[in-house]
């Protein structure tokens, strides 16, 4: 037995914390990561986190930008209950969200299915449908203001061809908000279409083939293959659309200034009027906080739905 070689296992002591080339790299890469995160987090803190905290603090003060800020506790929040314009703004915004979000999602999905076909010219159509989304809202709103004019506007003229006497859209308290909603749907469905397109193209073809072999109709294929596999995208689209819709502002400001009366005054427009036209920064901050709470609550509800309705593969 004199020739047996004993192989000693490598003990951890052989890998004592020496400054190896790999450890140094890791630490340096840690710094690199920090550097890359810095611009974004700096931007986030300066332009998002800090203003939100400041708004929260401001909501307990009364400040008109020029004279000093005076602490007034929860007076601003209590005032919300007796403010009829705030009530209208809240209802208008919920009305807007409840109508425009489902329509924008459904239309986006429908168009995505249409342009997903392997036909010629689809790239052209995809760009065209996305065009309204990437155009400035202000520019679109100005043009649509002309379209909505009661006698000479294009929309009423076209309706007239079918014998329908169109309403005085933007000055009619019943039709002003639908007018704004219509514009918003037209503007935003393109973005949803793009997202749904990506989702559709991520569904494996063999599933459709399997379904056809099992005798599924086109509608059944859509309902049982496409929709479930699209649910993560649908979830994302609904959440983003809802959050965005609660912040509707540009269209209301440019087309109607919140009128007639307060028919199209949305929460963000009201915040703008209270804060930047009437100079009550504290009250405006309180309204903004309420809006934040509402959007947060809606998003939480949607996340709850996600656990039950969204299937990930």
């Amino acid at each position, binding site marked *: 037995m004199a020739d047996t070689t004993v192989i000693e296992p490598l003990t951890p002591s052989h890998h004592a914390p020496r400054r190896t080339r790999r450890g140094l790299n890791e630490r340096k890469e840690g710094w690199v990561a920090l550097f890359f995160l810095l611009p974004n987090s700096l931007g986030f803190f300066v332009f998002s986190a800090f203003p939100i905290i400041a708004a929260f603090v401001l909501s307990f003060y009364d400040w008109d930008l020029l004279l000093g800020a005076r602490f007034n506790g929860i007076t601003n929040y209590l005032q919300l209950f007796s403010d009829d314009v705030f009530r209208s703004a809240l209802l208008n915004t919920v009305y807007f969200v409840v109508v425009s979000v489902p329509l924008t999602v459904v239309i986006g999905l429908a168009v995505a299915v249409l342009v997903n076909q392997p036909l010629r010219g689809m790239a052209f159509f995809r760009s065209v449908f996305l065009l309204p989304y990437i155009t400035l809202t202000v520019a679109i709103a100005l043009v649509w203001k002309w379209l909505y004019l*009661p006698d000479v506007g294009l929309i009423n003229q076209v309706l007239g061809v079918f014998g329908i006497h169109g309403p005085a859209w933007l000055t009619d308290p019943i039709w002003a908000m639908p007018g704004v909603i219509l514009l918003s749907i037209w503007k935003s469905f393109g973005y949803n279409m793009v997202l749904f397109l990506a989702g559709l193209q991520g569904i494996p073809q063999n599933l459709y083939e399997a379904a056809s072999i099992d005798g599924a109709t086109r509608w059944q294929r859509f309902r049982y293959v496409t929709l479930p596999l699209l649910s993560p995208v649908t979830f994302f689209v609904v959440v983003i659309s809802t959050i965005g819709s609660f912040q509707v502002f540009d269209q209301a400001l440019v087309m109607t200034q919140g009128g007639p009366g307060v028919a199209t005054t949305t929460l963000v427009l009201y915040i703008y009027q209270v804060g930047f036209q009437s100079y009550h920064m504290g009250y405006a901050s309180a309204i903004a906080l309420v809006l934040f709470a509402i959007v947060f609550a809606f998003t939480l509800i949607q996340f709850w739905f996600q656990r039950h309705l969204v299937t990930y593969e």
Partner: protein
Amino acid sequence: MVSEQGFSHFSRRSFLAGAAATVGAAALAACGGSGPASGNGNVTLRWAMWSASADERAVWADLANDVHKAYPNITVNLETASFNDYFDKLQTQIASGTQSDIVSMQSLRMPGFAARHAMQSLQPFIAKDPSVNPGDFFPSISDGLSFKKELYAFGYDVGPLLLYYNKDLFKAAGVDLPDPNKPMTWDDFRQRCIKLSRPDSQQYGYVIQPGLDSFVPWLWSGGGDYMDDGETTCTLDTTDSKASIQFMVDLILKDKAAAPITDLSNTQFQSERFFSGKVGMMIDGPWQFVNVRSNAKFDWDIAPVPAGKAGSVTWVAGSGFGLSNATKYPDEAWKALSVITSKASLDKVAKSGRGYPARQSSVPAFVNPGVKPEHVDTVLKILSGDIAKTRFFRTTTTWQETEVMLTQEFSPVFLGQRSVDDTVARVKPKFDDLLKKHQSIINQ
């Protein structure tokens, strides 16, 4: 090392990250706006003013140049914005300490801004330099630009609201032209509007801008008012006030003799309709002469506003220039101010038609034979009280908020969606509330 792996990878990445951060920081710093430059005795001042067209802007740019010619060490940089944006911007600029050295102010908004220390009193400067001759200005505009009896701005224009009319449209419809020396009665006005109107071709006798400002002459001529002299109570609920509102509502909706309001977010709604040549009359101030001259492709002239129960009563307001409370160069700014509000400058402003001059000595420069309006002397006759009564348009320190509230509450009335009684009943408590706040601010 410039190889593709290991440390050089890191150094290239970190260089890029560092460079990006530096550029970002520099961009942030640039966002803050440039402060006034100075050094070796040269001073650059900022002058903010509103302007609705390139023509208007040119008038002010010219005056800014004059400052440099008179004082070569002072350069005045002109910043313009649209009228509504100007005041929104001013408030935020004052809050962040970035307002211009020379501040333009409208008499309607002077109480609000002066009470909040946005501008400084000119009295100490006038005491040291009486050559600016403050007595040359029309008393009404000096009153309008004062706060607590001290002058805060020198006026550049003063204007009564007057009636503009489209002579071509009147002649085509066979309607008598308004008399430039005698205001017509409300009945007469209504009849002429009805005769001028052809709703099927969108032609109307009159157009009004939705909002309080254009409506006040009607309110006053009818014997009503929006608030009492003590500025404590809203008086829109008096019988006379309500009757005036009803008159206008009926003109638009029942008689269809005034243009229906089709655009609630356009501050130029009234002017645009008038310029289109399809409206017989509008009420606006002499500050529109320059715009009407370039945009109206028809023959036009002016007359006093129609006389109601209380006669022809119109409001007088104006604008001027003053010094910001926070200017770093008060003496240079004062010198610049004295140049741009001098008789020579106001002569130029008068000649261009941008405004009826606030200096009485510049009035002759306003009268240009051969240039419309033909009856420009009507303005002076109105201002002096010969053919109409004028009252200064008083506003409160909470006027911005009051205007927002009034616009919200009044648009349904002119659209026929709410009765006059209901509207006034809703407005009164809100207006009274705002007057209470106003009183607490001025009594601080």
